[in-house]
């Protein structure tokens, strides 16, 4: 009996002791961009690589991509203390930590059978280990895409989110005076490179939209003063007419599987939402209200649609099932809302808001809660999501003076946090941008 009690006593005593470890909650951190050391990839003095400056170019593209995201900063290579070859094999981590690099990118280039072989490694300088590594083989002139792909891999490994650098932006290029504007369809890489015009400008084009599955766009153009919707395959250049849609003002948007398009059509003076199956071209009506319903956009799972309607007296954002049922207003704050677009991540809806004489680009949760206005300006609209749902692009116009001069429009990007607002450089004025998915 005594023995038993003697045995039990320490047990009861130690139930209290086991909670001895002290816990410290860290709920804030450093929001500065993560410093990365991005080295030039070494090679065995290959003349073609030297002539085409491929090492320098790859480093510049990767470094620019990551810096533009606002999440990373690239350390000046003058601070580097190891040769490119040595660091690729075994970095001296302590030295890299000294220059505050939290990550190190090294790589090797070679040309084999007229093809460029790119091998890269991403090192965590604090954990002292390789955390990502890959070999990519491509044609020599494709170094730019390879660079974007490497930047995407780094972004994904360090943020946990898919990158968005190997993507394209299609937009409406604008030239000429405001009353006689020439509008052409144009496409470029997300960093502004590889820019080209897709239409001649003879006919007015509006609101191009990317297919979320294929490298295909849909856009609205006026043929004999009638709105006509086109499908254009970017890779093959094949263009096809979807149909003439009198009373259409915005081009349709694709469903997440790319098989349907959803649009607003004005019939008998009343604008409602319709969906068209692209395989059989059957059109189905989704809304039937006396109000103006426009700007429909699918949720990424295809089960819901967000749209814009003035049925409540002012333009507001609504959500409904993809068959048109359960229509519900979600925007709750004051002001008028337009162009709702569902995030590819599914958690947010981006919109344009007009409130007290100013235009805002903002986001809200899919039930309308948590509205956040990211940017404010005299005139801006038409947000489009990056493929990872992290960044928005939109276009902004500057005010013309009394003489009608000074009007311009340009594409901007902004991070979901509301920081890192950047102008995307285009050769001419730009509006109505649409961002592609990652190029497959």
């Amino acid at each position, binding site marked *: 009996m005594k023995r038993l009690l003697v045995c039990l006593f320490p047990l009861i005593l130690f*139930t*209290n002791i086991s909670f001895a470890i002290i816990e410290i909650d860290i709920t*804030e951190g450093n929001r500065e961009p993560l410093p990365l050391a991005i080295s030039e990839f070494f090679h065995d003095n290959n003349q073609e690589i030297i002539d085409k400056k491929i090492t320098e170019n790859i480093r510049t593209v990767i470094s620019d991509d990551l810096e533009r995201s606002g999440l990373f900063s690239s350390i000046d290579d003058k601070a580097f203390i190891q040769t490119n070859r040595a660091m690729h094999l075994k970095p001296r981590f302590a030295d890299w930590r000294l220059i505050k690099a939290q990550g190190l990118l090294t790589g090797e280039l070679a040309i084999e059978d007229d093809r460029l072989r790119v091998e890269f490694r991403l090192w965590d300088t604090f954990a002292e280990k390789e955390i990502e590594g890959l070999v990519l083989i491509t044609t020599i002139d494709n170094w730019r895409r390879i660079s974007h792909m490497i930047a995407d891999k780094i972004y994904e490994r360090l943020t946990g989110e898919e990158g968005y650098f190997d993507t394209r932006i299609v937009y409406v290029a604008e030239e000429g005076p405001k009353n006689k504007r020439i509008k052409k369809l144009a496409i470029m890489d997300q960093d502004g490179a590889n820019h080209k015009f897709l239409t001649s400008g003879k006919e007015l084009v509006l609101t191009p939209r990317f297919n979320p599955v294929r490298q295909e766009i849909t856009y609205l153009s006026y043929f004999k003063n009638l709105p006509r919707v086109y499908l254009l395959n970017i890779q093959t250049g094949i263009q096809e007419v979807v149909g003439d849609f009198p009373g259409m003002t915005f081009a349709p948007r694709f469903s997440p599987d790319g098989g349907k398009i959803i649009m607003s059509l004005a019939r008998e003076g009343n604008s409602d939402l319709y969906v068209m199956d692209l395989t059989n071209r059957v059109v189905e009506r989704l809304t039937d209200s006396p109000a103006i319903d426009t700007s429909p956009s699918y949720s990424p799972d295809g089960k819901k649609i967000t749209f814009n309607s003035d049925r409540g007296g002012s333009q507001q954002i609504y959500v409904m099932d993809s068959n048109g049922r359960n229509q519900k207003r979600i925007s709750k704050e004051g002001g008028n809302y337009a162009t709702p677009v569902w995030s590819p991540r599914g958690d947010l809806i981006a919109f344009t808001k007009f409130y007290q004489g100013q235009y805002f680009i903002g986001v809200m949760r899919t039930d309308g809660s948590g509205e956040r206005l990211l940017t404010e300006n005299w005139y801006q609209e038409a947000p489009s999501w990056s493929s990872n749902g992290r960044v928005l692009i939109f276009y902004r116009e500057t005010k013309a003076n009394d003489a009608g001069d000074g009007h311009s429009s340009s594409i901007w990007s902004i991070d979901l946090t509301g920081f890192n607002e950047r102008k995307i450089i285009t050769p001419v004025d730009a509006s109505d941008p649409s961002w592609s998915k990652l190029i497959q």
Partner: protein
Amino acid sequence: MRISVVGSVSLHFLILLFTIVSLPLFNNDELEMPPVIQVELIEIAEKTNVPQISKKKEDKKPEKENKKEEQKLNQPIQKPKEEKSNEKVKDPSTEEKIENKKIEEKMIQNMPVRKPEIKKKDKFDPLKLAELIDKQKDTKQTNPEDIVEKDYEALDSTPSLDKRLTLSEEDAIRAQFMQCWSIPLGIPYDETMIVKIKIFLNTDGSLLKPPEVVQHERMNKPGEKYFRTLAESALRAVRRCDPIKAPEAERYDNWKNLQLNFDPREILRG
């Protein structure tokens, strides 16, 4: 047979009774802990430790007054032992004085540096604050020893179960990791996005062995790439902060093992 059954039943009953009676006794200290007053968040160590030492040397009267108030507050848990220790402090020997002076210097050196915040919070009456904090500290730890003596851990090197970091020591450690942690802002909000890391430290504040992620299994699960990113960022922060500016070495037992909870949920919620 019957005897053994009766014996067994009564033994079980005794154990049960003993557990019921004894457990609340052990928890008694914590139960009597007063609720944390918000004002106490302000640099306890700077305000309590230093004034205590200076009061002791320069001005004994206010200390006595304080003590009276404290005694009033702590009446239910006062023990005779306390009076002895109080007397000791009131009438210290010259040896003690020298020793205390040394320790005081050491304490001042090791005090966490949070000077700008002290300035900010100067709008509070520091004397009142010190009083409040003294009371809090006394009642919280229910330690009959004099506060000054308690701070001088050198006098008592045996580890005690209820030893904790002061709030300012915690704050100082927290501030260091906040500086070192680059939050992966790209990850989406999720209620479970919190990474718990155990760290084991040497007396100089350096890592004794690699940090351990408590939920390490989750890191390698498919579909948990956001958690892995978060955990890796937290591990980088721990290594980047190595070595931390540690609290005083005499209190090593208190902080040699810590659990850091990296919790970005409020930030990610937006």
